[in-house]
């Protein structure tokens, strides 16, 4: 049934775009795609989530990246970053920095607090974009299958801190991320992220409301909740991301249960990130500059 009026237009970019969009839609509607055991849907991530985030990354936050050569070419790596910015925007921008900067376009598999997985919709978006619950079994499973894993040991202490504490790293919890790296012999890549602190500066925390809503904090920023939904627009700060040289752990596998080794290593990672943050801040005198 070849209609002579209908021909392929080889080389026509619009024809290719339409054809690939339609076939994408068909695959999605008939369920013909793969998800891994964590629920990661690479097709949806590459074609829907990342393009949206990429616009924010380039046009809104004007992100610059340094030290990409410190990411492992292939095989496992544990990327440990500072956390800030009221919502976990820094984690999303970090995934774009890794995916678009890495020669093999690797996906960063994020570890999130269990609160994320309690919330309908958000939990599923997180899983489909490659995230999972921050717990040792999941971290070790991802690392032993050679994935690049991203973790923020400060957790809510980092994202929910007051604006006056910006770029001051909070406590690093129990160092579970270090023991996961040691057990699997994975190198740790510290990463410093500058810019997320200014997107929603927290000036106050409505604790009673947070308790009522079972949230770790209820932020008050210059625009939220005063401007309603408009207050959800992040301020356009300038972002800098720097990956630091990897810390090898292969020779420490036997010390995975030694609290001294774990605390020292966690401290070393924390210090590295803190110092890199100071360097980056010197490079960026104006938080909202070009």
């Amino acid at each position, binding site marked *: 049934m070849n209609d002579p009026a209908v021909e392929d237009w080889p080389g026509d970019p619009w024809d290719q775009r339409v054809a690939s969009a339609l076939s994408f839609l068909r695959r999605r509607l*008939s369920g013909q795609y793969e998800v891994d*055991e964590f629920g990661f849907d690479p097709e949806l991530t590459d074609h829907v989530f990342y393009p949206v985030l990429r616009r924010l990354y380039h046009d809104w936050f004007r992100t610059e990246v340094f030290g990409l050569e410190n990411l492992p070419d292939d095989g496992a790596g544990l990327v440990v970053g500072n956390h800030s910015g009221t919502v976990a925007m820094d984690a999303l921008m970090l995934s774009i920095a890794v995916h678009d900067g890495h020669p093999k376009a690797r996906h960063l598999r994020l570890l999130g607090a269990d609160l994320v997985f309690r919330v309908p919709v958000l939990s599923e978006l997180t899983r*489909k974009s490659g995230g999972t619950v921050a717990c040792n079994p999941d971290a070790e*499973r991802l690392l032993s299958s050679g994935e690049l894993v991203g973790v923020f040991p400060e957790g809510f202490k980092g994202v929910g801190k007051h604006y006056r504490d910006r770029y001051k790293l909070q406590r690093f919890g129990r160092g579970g991320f270090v023991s996961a790296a040691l057990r699997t012999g994975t190198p740790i890549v510290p990463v410093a992220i500058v810019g997320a602190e200014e997107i929603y500066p927290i000036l106050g925390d409505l604790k009673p409301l947070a308790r009522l809503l079972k949230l770790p904090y209820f932020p008050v920023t210059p625009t939220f909740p005063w401007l309603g939904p408009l207050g959800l627009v992040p301020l356009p700060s300038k972002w800098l991301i720097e990956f630091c040289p990897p810390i090898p752990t292969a020779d420490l596998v036997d010390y995975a249960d030694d609290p001294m080794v774990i605390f020292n290593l966690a401290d070393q990672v924390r210090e590295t990130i803190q110092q890199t943050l100071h360097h980056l801040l010197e490079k960026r005198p104006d938080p909202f500059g070009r």
Partner: protein
Amino acid sequence: MTAALGVVVVTGISRYLGAHVAARLAADDRVGRVVGLDPNEPTAEIQRLLGGVEQVRADAASVPTVVAELDAEVVVHLSLVTSPEPGGRAAMKEHNVIGTMQLLAACQQASHLRKLVMRSSTAAYGASFRDPAVFTEDTEPRQVPRGGFARDILDVEGYLRGFRRRRPEVSATVLRFAPFIGSTADTTLTRYFAQPLVPTVLGRDPRLQFLHVDDALEALHRSVVEDHPGTYNVAGAGVLALSQAIRRAGRLAVPVFEPGLSAAATLAGGLRLGRYGLDQLDLFVHGRVVDTTRLVEEYGFEPRTTAAAFDDFIRRHADRSLVTADQLATAERAILDGIRRVRATAAKESS
């Protein structure tokens, strides 16, 4: 060749799984005598399978005497009910928990018993938001599940741990099965996917794993004729998201607000309407994925993948699909051709 195994007792032969396992064992010449225990009379359809199987009508109270008299060498415990129909939740718990307790008490007394094979479920891992994505056999449940069946499973496995301590010389195999699917399986879940409109939980897209029911039979058969003491996850490799499974089956998802579903499930349970209980709801909020490395290494047997098992189910139930993959492909072709035709005309006019 002389039979390697003497008397094999199978419980729950009035149901699909028990009947098929008993029939397979009876057809295996390594097995001497197969005796099926069940309080209920099997239906005519099931009865046809049970040619070489001796049948004993025994309720929970008379099981100890029967097991003792038979001098069983192997006991295969499959008599668990997964949903409260017909007799309600109380009868279900009585059957699962008290029934297993009494059977294990009888097994403890049986002096010639060499092996115990028990059916369990991956529901044993409970359901919590702090759960790891993939359960290994050593994962402890973090939260007691809401569903009745899952709680029964936790109780039953608890009794089995006690049995292992008291009779360490008996080889005890526990198979934690993922939900069954396949062209012949008839379970709450297969009935769920067979409907054209499928209710789901709003904002949740759980990761599911299935086990082809024939692979469940194979694993049980091997557990009886080979020696594999221990606890094993049995599931098809790979994962389907619920939304993906619904699309592959050509059904339409109808998302429902979760608190409403919980209330409906509780109400349905109370009124004994319960086809879908809190067990299904827990699964549809949290999903459940297990690691089967231990099974594959120990048994040298790999169940067909979750996707393949689900495909087998779809082929059987294709008649109730609303949208098929072929229709979508035709639509794709038609739209693409349409757009090309319009553009070709436009190009001709402008030139």
